[in-house]
């Protein structure tokens, strides 16, 4: 299984800044994730797009926890979309789902 270092791109959508994640959310993703989050700025809410993520591990979860902690101190909300059912389950087990809005995908199928 080829490992792919995470690429994080920031785009602006109507709902606000979206960080599009492509690759693996693991220990090597820290820089890309932090840089993108800083770039997203201090909008009221930031969306993490997981469509391009095929693998996430516990170190990756720790990075998301780090982002969430930053968001909370600056009064931002953090949302997630594009989670596979497996990673959605992990967001629920770890209770990340209690602190982030998980956007269901059905409406975006167009």
């Amino acid at each position, binding site marked *: 299984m080829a490992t792919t270092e995470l690429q994080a791109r920031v785009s602006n959508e109507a709902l606000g800044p979206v960080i599009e994640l492509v690759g693996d959310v693991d220990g090597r993703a820290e820089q890309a994730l932090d840089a993108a989050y800083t770039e997203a700025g201090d909008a009221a809410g930031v969306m993490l797009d997981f469509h391009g993520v095929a693998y996430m591990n*516990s170190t990756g979860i*720790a990075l998301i926890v780090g982002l969430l902690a930053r968001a909370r101190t600056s009064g931002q909300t953090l949302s997630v979309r594009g989670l596979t059912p*497996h990673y959605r389950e992990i967001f629920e087990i*770890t209770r990340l789902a209690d602190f982030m809005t998980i956007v269901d995908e059905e409406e975006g199928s167009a």
Partner: protein
Amino acid sequence: MTALAQTWRKVTRRGGEPTAETTDEVTVTVSTVEAPSVEIAPNDPLVAYLQGAGGAVDVEKLELESPGVTALREAGVALVVPLISGGELVGTLNLGSRLSDQQYSTDDRRLLDGLAAQAAPALQVAELVQKQAAEARSRERIEQELKVAQLIQQNFLPRVLPDLPGWEVAAYYQPAREVGGDFYDLFELPDGRVAVVIGDVTDKGVPAAMVMAAARSLLRASGQRVVSPGEVLQRVNDLLCPDIPDKMFVTCLYAVVDPATGHVRYANAGHNLPYVRTADGSTELRAKGMPLGLLPGMSYEEHEAVMSPGDGLLLYSDGVTEAHGPEREMFGTPRLVEHVADPASGDLIDGLLTRLQRFTGADWEQEDDITLVTLRRTLAAGGQNGRVSGLELRFTLPSEAGNEREGMRRVLEAIEPLGLEARRVERLGTAVSEATMNAIEHGNQGRADIPVEIEVVTLGSELVVRICDVGDGPTATDVESPDLEAKLAGLQKPRGWGLFLIENMVDEIRVSDADGRHTVELVLQLKGGDGDGDD
């Protein structure tokens, strides 16, 4: 007595003698004559006398009753100059009488004594050099012989072990520096059963290796023709007896295993008794018989045992049980049996070797060959009652960050035939990846040369993934359970999700520590599970 300076160098000056070309010139001929050998025994009183003489000695004037003096006189020696180095007599300069028939003058003697004083230490050094060269040659010859013995040995050990569905076959062979006569063999028989052989030839080096090669070939040839283990040993014994060198013999355990049923028929020619690790402890496989090559016409008891799924058979050589600890205490059979009986003590080979290593200590020089052969029945062949059969995988990964992905990939590939629900497969993948990451980072401390071992087996209705490290780091179970609110509030580190995830991804997690190995077993129930209704 050490070598004597025994070359007489005669300088002859012939004046006015007729030569082929008549000339008035004086011809000087230098001729070297080998002196007759004069042996002086180390206990001859002459030795002590010369040691204390302090200079050249006239043989004629010697008043000593000694065979050495007699020998010197018979050889025509007139003057003996002792060569003393470091207070020790290292040789003598023996001179015949002067050609002029005159006595040696004081000047002659002074010259000779001076020469002796120079020559003695030089002679001693030369002797030392010669001795060392001889020792080096002899060492080289021994090394060469060791290599030959190793070569023979290695050429007669199986290069590949048979692949038996539903069985895990492993062998370990480590020759001692001076190769002993251990051997083992596994080969498939025409009817699908498998012969398993372990043996030990008395003696070491090339002779043992030659006998081992012969015994192994005879066992293979007889084994292909006769199925009864007792009969095989009887034949090989009769064939070996006329040719085997005196005082040499071969101990040998010969077993025939039926992979389909777990039946083991075996006979023993004086070899260490094998043991089976069972769910209840251990069983000794007992059978009596004389070693091969001692007496012709012997018969060998034959017995049978049945191995159930999960049972493991261990064959070994006495290099294990007779290994000594630093206090000269022997490892012994009881320790071996204890290891076999305790499943928590780890793998039959690796675990045993770790235990042996701990017993003998780091400075141990292996005394004898060590050979271990194991056969473990992993599951019931045939797959009754929806049991999955034939699934097993074992591999290792270097402890390098990122390799957990490869571990996960290989495990998931191996369980594909089970047809598990995609969601359960993904969960297991995450659990494997996390447990492997722990093994790499914590257990093996990221030391690439220490591998993480991963094993996938189906045992009854369970799928088990074992992930094994050397357990040097803090155990994952010591980690506090993660609390997201505490983490967000900065009261806990953001990390520490690994074990928590694993626990939530599989049906059961079993952690064990034994023999310096830390094992995490991830268990999925193949039946029931998530109410998944596949056949």
